[in-house]
């Protein structure tokens, strides 16, 4: 079963405007690797050259930041919801 990945506005130029994408895989690295194979412009926005997550990108599985759950190796299940959000200073809703 596919995993829904929510794309923030700032990354939508790289997905042809799509706000959600479907991915699959057992880890967050596999899921994001799959969608960046479909949309090559996304890859440098998601990953550094060494395969770690982009410094200014936060990735959440069910609203839990994957950096504290094993990074790209964090496990994902079929009903999980993946959200990508850019890092900002916090406290701002505009």
């Amino acid at each position, binding site marked *: 079963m596919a995993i829904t990945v929510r794309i*923030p*506005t*700032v*990354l939508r130029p790289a997905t042809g405007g799509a706000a959600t994408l479907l991915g699959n895989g057992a880890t967050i690295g596999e899921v994001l690797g799959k969608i960046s194979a479909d949309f090559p412009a996304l890859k440098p*926005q998601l990953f550094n050259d060494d395969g770690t997550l*982009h*410094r*200014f*990108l*936060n990735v*959440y599985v069910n*609203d*839990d*930041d994957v*950096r*504290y*759950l094993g990074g790209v190796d964090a496990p994902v299940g079929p009903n999980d919801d993946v*959200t990508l*959000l*850019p*890092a*900002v*200073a*916090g*406290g*701002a*809703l*505009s």
Partner: protein
Amino acid sequence: MSRYASVLDLIGNTPVVDVSALSPSPNVKILTKLEGRNPAGSVKDRVALSLVEAAERDGILKPGLPGQILIEPSSGNTGIALAMVCQLRGYHLKVVLPTNVSPERRQLLHVWGAEIIDSPGSEGSNGAVRLAQKLSKENPEWVFLYQYANPANPLAHYTTTGPEIYRDVPEITHFVAGLGTSGTLMGVGRYLKEQNSDVQIWAVEPPSGEMVDGLRSLEDGYIPPIFTENHGEQLLDRKVVVRPKESIEWTRRLAEVGLFVGISTGAIMCGAVRCAATIPEGQEATIVTIACDDGWKYLSTGAWSDDIDDVVERAKRIIYF
């Protein structure tokens, strides 16, 4: 003794209250530290005093010398707290403020004599930071304390908030707080881990990024230098994002147990309840959270009275938390 010589002496030593009635588990206690009891009404009073005192110690600010000007970007509580401290210390404060903050915040800045410089609302906090940086470069005589990078920010929490929590709740197992400048989490987190390395530190992040239209690319992103310099990724054990609707729901739940607190406190409480839900059955835990401020500044949101979906819609346009 409840007699004080100065309003500044009222900062800190805030009470902690048990809100376990909201805990999902009978084995998990939840307590919250009421920072709204500070004289300018928020946890940022501690930071503002610490920033100004550090600058005075370093000779950057000179008490009693007329004509000294400070500039600081703030969408809320830090500006208000600095305005109060600056008024008492005799400094002129300019606050760079996004145009779309709630009206109460503007009024409070005026109460304590601060001057407001508008920054574009669509750029949120990041835009205010950028404009303050630009203005401080153009006016090198202005003092830019810059809470996002100033070590006196986490130091305030390392020397006051952290020790107060450990004194009042020595059985603490988890600390849950909001992630803005990261000052609270870095300062309290480091202090608590030094006392007991088993204490877990959880960050709650508001989902601001998806709504900041002014963000042109990921490279416009921002991680506070305080977070990086304090090795935040190693210090934190978990980070969760809480949605605006959940934040307002939990702000209302807190009111049901008697606490009239701001919306970020609702978000933090939501994070604390999620934290409580991870504790295995039969295991005891004590979670301490921060109630950043009281609800007064948020009355214009309708957070307690209006349809919750309307409040969430409004929160996309106006900075409330």
